[in-house]
């Protein structure tokens, strides 16, 4: 029996709901089957966060909703709605 390796999927959604559209994404493959990298796909792997759930990914972290600091209400920085998923696979 082989060892288990983790695959990670990060989805950035259009709002805090898991069934909202994917606007950005990243993947990391602990099994080494594929080297994902910046700019390697122009279409997201799933249309929404729920799409990842129904395909077997397990959600393990979601970004918090934070209040807006006074005086900085209009400032924008990082993508807000970040969801981390994982999937474990057996290596040969």
């Amino acid at each position: 029996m082989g060892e288990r390796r983790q695959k990670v999927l990060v989805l950035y959604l259009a709002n805090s709901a898991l069934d909202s559209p994917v606007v950005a994404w990243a993947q990391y493959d602990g099994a080494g089957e594929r080297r994902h990298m910046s700019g390697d796909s122009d279409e997201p792997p799933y249309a929404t966060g729920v799409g990842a759930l129904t395909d077997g990914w397990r959600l393990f972290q979601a970004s918090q909703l934070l209040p807006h600091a006074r005086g900085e209400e209009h400032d924008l920085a990082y993508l807000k709605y970040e969801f981390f998923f994982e999937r474990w696979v057996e290596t040969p």
Partner: protein
Amino acid sequence: MNNTPPLLSDQQMASFVARGFLRLDAVVPDAINQQFLQEAGQVAQPAPGRKLRHAYAGLLAASGIPEVAPGTPLAEAYPRESAVWRLLALPVVQGAIRSLVGEDPVFDHHFLHVTFPPAYHEAGGSENVSQHTHQDSTVDARRAFDVQIMYYPHAVTRPMGGTRFVPGTHLRKVSEVAIGRYQNIRGQQHMVCEAGTLLFLHHGLWHGGGVNLSDRTRTMFKIRIQPSGSQRRGWDTTERAAPEPQRPIFFVKTAQKPDTVAAILTTPEPWFEQDTSRLEYVNRIKLWRYLADDPAFDADYWMTRLENETGAR
């Protein structure tokens, strides 16, 4: 005789404010492109065990492109009749620079970006991967902005990687490659272009070098320039239409004109989150107010609504 170079239009400036880039395809004549490639120099062929950084260091040391101190007036940065001097003297380039950063810009830095094909990585033992997406320099809270001129002296095909950039990201205040985790973003673009293409970027635009899967090196030359004075109304404002009334939103009975400043500033990008898209419009309007020297400007009532404190007085 009119010596004014062709300045950008209201629509081009509004598009730059909204999307953070201006693309000018094949505007540099081939004679300048060839001269530039000759002056830039050739990278040594791949050799077993030779690290890429050594090939790069050798290229920069032997290059005919000068080392230039930051703060140098752009007009004095390059030797007369050198390829970059000739490029910067092109009327279309002069017009874009004057429109975006104003008169007498200052040189910040430049760099010769060479992206290597697989043979170099195999010989040097490095991994051939794309560059992480990043915002140049560091967290920059200014309303004023620098411009990065990306020059593509030879044709760039999709397998060669090309600069990847994400329209509309320039007004976000992030810390350089802290955004490296965002591997792919809806609406990202990859530069595929003819020789002599220029891409003018707002300094805040998120970008990164693509992985080169072709069989030749890819060269791009970047020059960052700063304003030395006012950036206000540097573009062609001679035919500005009278201010338009605020457009109705949501409940609209007829199609609206797509090329007004208001329409351009309120056009979303595919990656926009649903709520923060409205804050993007707010920040675009603030930048337009600054550049147009028009503190009362608004688009679709976004700022007027937020600034209405009459009931609190």
